[in-house]
């Protein structure tokens, strides 16, 4: 089974690697990090991620800009806002988004 590909957008340099590390502890998930919207879009153009996790520093305007572009590439992509910056809510957020 292919791993669920998760793009993590987060401009907090301390939180981004923690979230990626936590995602990668699940053998069925694989995280790729982007520190800003431009990098995120560039990565999405290279690979159609299954899920985009919007973390610290990503406001609603960013989400509104990204959503249609990503959906045009992968209509099945899910978006989820990550809260809390660590392990507490991550699993529920991802499982909830994947359905």
């Amino acid at each position, binding site marked *: 089974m292919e791993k669920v590909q998760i793009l993590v957008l987060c401009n*907090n340099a301390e939180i981004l690697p923690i979230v990626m590390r936590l995602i990668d502890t699940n053998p069925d998930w694989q995280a790729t990090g982007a520190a800003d919207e431009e990098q995120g879009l560039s990565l999405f153009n290279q690979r159609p991620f299954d899920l985009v996790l919007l973390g610290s520093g990503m406001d*609603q305007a960013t989400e509104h800009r990204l959503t249609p572009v990503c959906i045009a590439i992968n209509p099945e992509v899910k978006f989820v806002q990550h*809260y*809390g910056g660590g*392990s507490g*809510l991550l699993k*529920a957020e991802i499982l909830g988004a994947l359905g």
Partner: protein
Amino acid sequence: MANTVLHKADTRGFADHGWLKSYHTFSFAGYYEPSRIHFGALRVLNDDSVAGGGGFGKHPHDNMEIISIPLEGALEHQDSMSNVATIKNGDIQVMSAGTGVQHSEYNKNTDEHVKFLQIWVFPNKRNVEPRYDQVTLNPADRHNQLQQVLSPNADDAGVWIHQNAWFHLADFDKSISTEYKIKGAGNGVYVFILKGDVKVNDQLLNTRDGYGIWDVDGFSITAESDAEFLLMEVPMEFKY
């Protein structure tokens, strides 16, 4: 018509990390129960016990209002905003994580557990400036009455957060009763029993039970024994 949800104490998630034992009312970390993700803007209600000398090492948070209420013992707090403080039973601590904050919380005492409630509320706006505050409460002010310990207003009693939420603590003698009136339109209240037996309208609750009630203007609370409890009023629908 009132909507309600009952979470009996023994249905909560549980995690034993050795130094930390935690009961989770809502899905948290390794505990995932799709029917128990949140109650409105209330996302986390963890009932934590930290062994002597143990604690949470330095770790980051963002975009969450984090409230701690010590029930026994004392926690030493340090954060990236240069705050160093101790919170103990009778205090309430709040941290708006906003754009990002790092903190640690350690049990100051090596020979006794610290027990505290860790509560996370979704903020009503993203990426606010991080802030920390703590307040020492007067326990006499909650004897047989509701003591406001949190609100959305900086100039009101207790601590404040970035959300249209109000928390009250109470320490009732048996048979004491009161009415709670909802403060914010569209809000609901999550009742958490710290100790004893309490009736919310006709619903009997026991120690560590949780009970959410919404789509009401208010409700009655009656102590069926000497009892301590926490009321958390939060928006049921929210965006930021």
